[in-house]
């Protein structure tokens, strides 16, 4: 493959033809801040935070949409670049609710990160601010358009990952906002609540309703695991706080990347549902009574053993489970064959 060599912050970088300056810098370990860029989505060049100085070029081009060429000399942190980035952050903060104290994304917000990084303490521009009602008429996603920075990642995720095109930009200028058709809510649209827009939102405009209202971002421990629903085998992170699963977030899954469906992302509530069985039950006179494990296991062993003894192994049957792990299915097969002595074992593979 043809390659080009350019200089970024004094460092020689060689990349394949067609690589953007942003990608080239990242490959070389040089940091450039971005808000609207996402490696899985088409380049946008909208937020301008990734501007760099390139010798011989007029103005400051956005590195995410500028193709690296041979001999290019790039400065990613020159005074002009830093000044431009500060101004962009100030402009964004000029119309941003400064409510980080209570925001569910506090600690996981790119705008916050960059304001900190560039020392922007407050908006340098006083002016009109939005006052949109917060949309929370569905059980999955909260949309707070007051916090939206119009990076368009959700628009592209919906179109390019989910293929639904539920949201897009509407209105003009200061009034521009991201909305489903006819300015309805997500609940009033074709939205399937995959939450893939939430996963790419760099700020607090799109938040998981359950997760962000039950834990601060730094309070959760993330445990990588495999989804318990369909056979696709998506990987995600269970978010755990104080011994409870409080949410699910995307990681870079081998099968699914960051994409999840509504069940995977928002269907975890059953784990702590009050209906969960917490103690063994033994039915006496038609009514379930709580029992100890010793009693319950003893009774199971005694009754299965008695049937085996009286009627033979063929009078016993086992249903294993497509919901349980491989190890558990293996042990159930071993139990049926080696302990009960029967091949009467099956599960719901046909259903």
């Amino acid at each position, binding site marked *: 493959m043809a390659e080009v060599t350019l200089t970024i912050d004094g460092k020689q970088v060689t990349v394949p033809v067609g690589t953007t300056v942003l990608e080239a810098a990242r490959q070389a370990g040089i940091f450039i801040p971005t808000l609207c860029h996402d490696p899985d989505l088409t380049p946008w060049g909208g937020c301008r935070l990734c501007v760099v100085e390139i010798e011989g070029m007029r103005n400051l081009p956005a590195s995410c949409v500028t193709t690296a060429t041979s001999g290019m000399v790039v400065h990613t942190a020159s005074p002009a670049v830093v000044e431009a980035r500060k101004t962009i952050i100030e402009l964004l903060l000029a119309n941003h609710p400064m409510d980080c104290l209570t925001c569910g994304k506090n600690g996981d917000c790119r705008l916050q990160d960059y304001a900190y990084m560039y020392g922007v303490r407050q908006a340098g521009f006083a002016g009109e601010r939005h006052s949109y009602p917060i949309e929370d008429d569905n059980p999955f996603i909260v949309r707070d358009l007051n916090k939206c920075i119009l990076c368009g990642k959700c628009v592209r995720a919906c179109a390019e990952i989910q293929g639904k095109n539920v949201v897009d930009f509407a209105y003009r200028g200061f009034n521009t906002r991201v909305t489903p058709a006819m300015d309805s809510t997500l609940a009033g649209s074709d939205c399937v609540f995959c939450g893939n827009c939430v996963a790419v939102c760099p700020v607090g405009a799109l938040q998981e309703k359950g997760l962000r209202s039950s834990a601060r971002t730094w309070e959760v421990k993330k445990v990588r695991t495999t989804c318990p629903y369909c056979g696709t085998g998506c990987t995600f992170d269970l978010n755990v706080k104080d011994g409870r699963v409080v949410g699910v977030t995307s990681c870079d899954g081998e099968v699914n990347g960051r994409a999840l469906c509504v069940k995977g992302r928002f269907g975890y509530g059953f784990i702590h549902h009050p209906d969960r069985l917490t103690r063994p039950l033994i039915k006496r006179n038609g009514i379930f009574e709580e029992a100890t494990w010793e009693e319950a296991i003893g009774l199971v062993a005694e009754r299965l053993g008695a049937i085996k003894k009286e009627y033979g192994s063929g009078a016993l049957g086992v249903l294993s*489970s497509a919901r349980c792990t491989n190890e558990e299915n293996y042990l159930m097969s071993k139990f049926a064959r080696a302990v009960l002595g029967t091949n009467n074992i099956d599960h719901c593979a046909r259903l």
Partner: protein
Amino acid sequence: MTNPIGDIGGADFILAIGTNTTESHPIIGLQVKKAVRNGATLVVVDPRRTEVAGLAHYHLRLKSGTDIALLNGLANVIISEDLVNKEFVDTRTEGFEALKETVARYTPEYVEQITGISADIIREVARGYATAKNATILYTMGLTQHVCGTHNVFAVANLAMLCGHIGKPHSGVNPLRGQNNVQGACDMGALPNVLTGYQSVTLEEVRSKFAEAWGVGELPATPGLTVGEMLEAAARGEIKGMYIMGENPVLSDPDADHVIHALEKLDFLVVQDIFLTETARLADVVLPAASFAEKDGTFTNTERRVQRVRKAIEPVGEAKPDWQIICLVATAMGYPMQYGSPAEIMEEIARLTPSYGGISYQRLENGSLVWPCPAPDHPGTPILHAGKFARGLGKFHPVEYVPPAEQPDEEYPLILNTGRRHFHYHTGTMTLRTGALEEYYGREHLEINPADARALGIADGERVRVVSRRGQVEVTARVVDTVPPGVVFTSFHFPDVAINRLTNPARDPVARIPELKVCAVRVEKIA
């Protein structure tokens, strides 16, 4: 699947049969959408106009249960128009002449009479599939839950072999499996005829290998009973005791009233689950199990990809992981069974199972492995049948069309089709208890075509009674043309619309899969 999920996005032609992909497998649906965006031709075969059918270039709305006729018709065109991949058929397959003879009768015009799909469309689709660079076939239960389910799959395989669309990237025969670990449960020998890795119980050397490893004298040599057969045997009083782990046959199996009758007849029933399911309510003893979040283990997905499940929290209450419970019961029955961790169990599985031979928790920490993975240094096998089929030559199995076991008649004039909804899963045990999914989609409905609704005087939103020869349910009608005239559809997720009270337990003679996609019903307005 013969190929990875990620391959689908790069296919040039997708033939999706009986799969509501974007609802039942949303993330696989994304790959289908990606392929379509990249210019692939999508053909969806389904009586219903699902979301994925709406994306299709060709939506073949065939009459329910006529898949073999359609697939044979496609093969007929491919052979008669000389579109066969001759090199593949000559070098990789056997039995072509027999197939040719069988499908000769299935001319597009004849198939049109059976399926309702026009002969011209059959020709176009056949040409598209045969001439595509890479064509993939996706299917799910819409193809398999028929009395001819096994033959339906043979007909699919015949098509792939005719055109050589197998054993290479972006192609293959790809069943999309519906449950997180249904592939793994099969791999682990939770089936009546095989031990792990599909090693047959009828083979002496297999049994003696396992008997030795498990420290028992001998293992049972005759294949056992399938779910349906076990329940029938229970109803006859031949099965006296059952141990059910994490399954809810009262809602998931056909002819539910008969299932309940069978389970009630048992002398002893123990159910191990995370909730007191409809099945658990019938038990003598209920053992509380840990959920996926509370234990370590592995799941094997529809691609044969073995992936880690990791414990995030302690089991709720006194619940225990299923593997520990099984060990306790076995030990109490006089067979000491003890493991320090699921990793140890996997070591034993790997020793006894050639296709899992190279799989260990240590390796899985660095990423998943796709079986067959016979050795610790084997990278896994994402694409099956490359260069050679597992059995050597790929065998064409000629199959004939047979109609569904139950046909509509005067008393039961409509066909009931069942399946899944996007927001729910299987018998709703989990998804009706999330605080979110059931809030958004909390009540089930029956989809009925406007023509049928008009004839029955049913308006959208009215309560109706759906009745089959086996049972009935009441449900709210939704009048939509996503179902064709003569067909009604609902899901099996909701206990208050226990639709499997109606479904037909007629089964495929080979795989013993019930015909859940077709049964005859009538719909009555509730006065």
